[in-house]
C-alpha cells in the first residue's frame, strides 16, 4: 500500500516531470520560458522536481514586453536568484530599437509582438526547444495543440498538420533551424494550478491576491491605472479590491473584483466562478474568435 494517496495532482505532476526529462534528454539546446507569472512559477517547481539535485539542463528565458507589472518582474528575478539558475532576458525594446517591431503608438498592447522577440532570441541562442507553461483549458486553439508542438523555421504553428501524439511517447525530432514548443502542463486546469500553489506553498507575486487598486472601466472591463493606462476624458478612477487571475501586459490585463487573500480562498472562488480565466482578464483575446490561433500561427508561445 502506498504511504499516501496518489492524487490527481500527483498524476499531473509526474506527467509533467516525465515531459521535462524527455526534453532534456532528446533536445540539444532547450530553454524554459519563464515570466514570473503563476503558471511559469509552477513550471519552475516541476523543473526542480525533475532535475534536483542537479542544476536545470536549460536556462530560463523571459521575453519582456516592458509592459509588465513591477511586482512580477521582482518575483521573476528573486526566484531565478534563489534557485541559482541562469536567467536570460530579452526585451521588446531591443526589437523596437532594431526596427523589427514597429509600433503604431508607444503605449499599445504588446502581447502580439512577443513572437518577434521570441523568434529573435531563439535564433540568437540556437534553441531547438522552448518549454512553456501554456494550458489546454485556457483557450480553444490551445485545446487542440500537442504537448510537443512543432514549429517550422519561421516559428509558425500549422494546426491542420500536427504530428499525432500517442501514449506518452513524444516525437521530439526537428531539423536544423526548426524548433519545438513543449507544454508540460497542457493537462492542468486553472484549478489544478491553484491547488498546486497551495500544496507546494509557492511564492507568487502578491498582485495575484486581493488588494486595493486604482482602476478605470473601459470596453466592458476594468483596467489598472498605471503609467501606461491613464484615464481618458469621461473616465473616472475608482478604488476597488481586486486580484489578477493572469498577469500580462499592463495595458490589456484586467483584474477581477475579489477578496481572496490567499491560495485557499482563490481555490474556493475558482470553484464557483462562471467566467473563464482569459475571458475575464485578457482584452486582446476578445478581439476575434481566433485571436490566439492567429498569434500562434505567427510564432507566439
Amino acid at each position, binding site marked *: 500500500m502506498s504511504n499516501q494517496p496518489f492524487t490527481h495532482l500527483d498524476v499531473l505532476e509526474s506527467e509533467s*516531470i516525465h515531459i521535462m526529462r524527455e526534453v532534456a534528454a532528446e533536445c540539444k539546446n532547450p530553454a524554459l520560458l519563464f515570466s514570473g507569472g503563476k503558471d511559469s512559477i509552477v513550471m519552475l517547481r516541476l523543473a526542480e522536481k525533475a532535475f534536483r*539535485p*542537479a542544476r536545470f539542463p536549460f536556462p530560463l528565458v523571459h521575453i519582456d514586453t516592458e509592459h509588465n507589472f513591477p511586482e512580477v518582474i521582482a518575483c521573476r528575478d528573486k526566484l531565478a536568484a534563489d534557485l541559482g539558475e541562469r536567467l536570460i532576458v530579452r526585451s521588446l525594446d531591443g526589437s523596437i530599437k532594431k526596427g523589427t517591431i514597429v509600433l503604431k503608438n508607444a503605449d499599445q498592447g504588446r502581447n502580439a509582438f512577443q513572437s518577434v522577440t521570441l523568434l529573435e532570441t531563439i535564433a540568437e541562442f540556437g534553441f531547438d526547444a522552448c518549454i512553456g507553461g501554456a494550458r489546454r*483549458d485556457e483557450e480553444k486553439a490551445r485545446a*487542440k495543440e500537442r504537448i510537443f508542438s512543432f514549429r517550422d523555421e519561421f516559428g509558425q504553428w500549422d494546426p491542420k498538420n500536427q504530428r499525432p501524439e500517442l501514449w506518452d511517447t513524444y516525437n521530439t525530432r526537428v531539423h536544423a533551424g526548426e524548433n519545438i514548443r513543449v507544454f508540460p502542463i497542457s493537462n492542468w486546469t486553472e484549478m489544478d494550478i491553484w491547488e498546486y500553489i497551495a500544496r507546494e506553498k509557492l511564492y507568487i507575486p502578491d498582485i495575484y491576491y486581493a488588494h486595493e487598486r486604482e482602476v478605470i472601466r473601459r470596453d466592458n472591463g476594468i483596467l489598472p491605472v498605471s503609467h501606461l493606462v491613464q484615464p481618458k476624458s469621461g473616465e473616472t478612477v475608482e478604488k476597488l479590491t481586486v486580484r489578477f487571475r493572469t498577469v500580462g501586459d499592463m495595458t490589456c490585463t484586467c483584474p477581477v473584483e475579489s477578496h481572496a487573500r490567499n491560495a485557499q480562498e482563490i481555490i474556493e472562488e475558482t470553484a464557483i*466562478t462562471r467566467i473563464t480565466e482569459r*475571458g475575464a482578464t485578457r482584452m486582446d483575446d476578445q478581439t476575434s474568435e481566433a485571436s490566439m490561433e492567429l498569434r500562434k500561427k505567427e510564432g507566439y508561445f
Partner: protein
Amino acid sequence: MSNTTQLLRFITAGSVDDGKSTLIGRLLHDSKSIFEDQLSAITKTSERRGGMGAVDLSLLTDGLQAEREQGITIDVAYRYFATPKRKFIIGDTPGHEQYTRNMVTAASTANLAIILIDARKGVLTQTRRHTFLASLVGVPHIVLAVNKMDMVDYSEETFNAICAEYRAFAAQLGLHEITFIPLSALNGDMVVERGENLNWYQGSPLLELLENVVIDHDLNTTDFRYPVQWVCRPQTQEYHDFRGYMGRIESGEIAAGDEITILPSGRTTKVKEIVTYDGNLQRAYAPQSVTLTLADEIDISRGDMFVKSATMPQASKEFEAMLCWLSESPLDLSRKYIIKHTTRVVKCVFARLEYRVDVNTLEQHNSATLNMNDIARVAMKVQQPLVFDSYIKNRFTGSFIVIDEATNNTVAAGMII
C-alpha cells in the same frame, strides 16, 4: 498499489448524428463546467450562422478557425471538467474520413471509451469500427451509450435488443466488460440526472458511472518496468559522487534494497535509494517519476530498462505488431524508419506485411503497402534489441511510434503482439 482514481481520461466515439456533441455539451453544462463567456460566445456564433434559436454546443469543441468556418472538426481536442469526486479529461475526436487516426490517438491515453449509438439505428458499421479500434488500443473500459431513447419511446425492449446484438459482436473481439446505458442527451435523461423516463433502468446515470468506475487495476501492478530517461550527475561539491537514474515507473513498484536487472545488459544490482525532491522514499509505484541510485557502479544510459528478475520482459530484434498507419505518405517497404519505444530510439525495417484489417468488417486482406488510417499486422526488425512486453500485458512497454527520418513526422503507431 497506488490509487490514481482521481483522474479519469475518456473518449467519446460517434458521429455528430449520434448526438456526440450534445452529449459532451450536456455533461459539461449539467456539471456546471461551461462558463458564461463561452456560452455567450457560442450563442453569438450560432445566431450569426442563422441557427434557429438553439445553441450549437459543438461550437464549444471546435477550436480552430477553419473548423468554425467550415462547420467541421479537424483534430483531437482535449476538454477538462471536474466534479467533487473526480477530474475528467475528454479526448474529443471528430468523425469522418480521418477517424481512425484521430480515435487511435485519443484512445491511446484513455481509461474509458463511450461508444454512442442512435437507438433508432442500432448497431451500425461505424459502431463496429469504433469498438474494434477501442479494443485494438486496449481501452480498459467500454461504455455503450444508447442515445436518443426519447425517439423510441424510451423502450426497454429496443434497448435490450441493441445490447444483445452488441454483446455478441464485442465477444468476437474478446470484450466482455461493457456497461450499457440508455440515455437521451437532448433531454438529459441518464446523463447527469436520472430523469423520469427511464425508470426501468437499474444502473447508474453516465456521470455517476464515470465518477465511480474503478481504474486502479488498469495499471500493470506486478511487473516493475523503469525505462531510464536521464542520468543525473550534479558534479557539485555536495553531490560529488551522486549518480541517479531518473525515470518514471511505468508499471509495478520498487522498494529500496530490491534487486533489479538492467536490460539489455543483464547485469544485476540493488536499489540503494529512491530519491525525490520531497525526500527519499522507502517504496514507489507506477506512475511516479523518481530518481534511483544503485548499490554498484554500472555503465547505464538512457534507453536501458530496470526490471525485477522474477518478471522479465522480452528482449529481441524481431517482433510482430499491430500497426496503425497515420501518415498521408504511404508505407515504403524498401525504406528504413525510426522507432521510438519507451526511451529508446532505433532504426527499423518492415520485414513483412502479414495482413491489413478492414476496420468495418474485420476481414483480413493481403496488402502491398499501407495508407493513412490502415490497420495491419506487421513483422518488424530493429537495429538494436528492444526490451518489451506484449501490449495486452503492458500498454507502456508494448507500444511504439514510427518516425520518418526524412520529414521527422510520426507516421505510425504500433502495438506489440
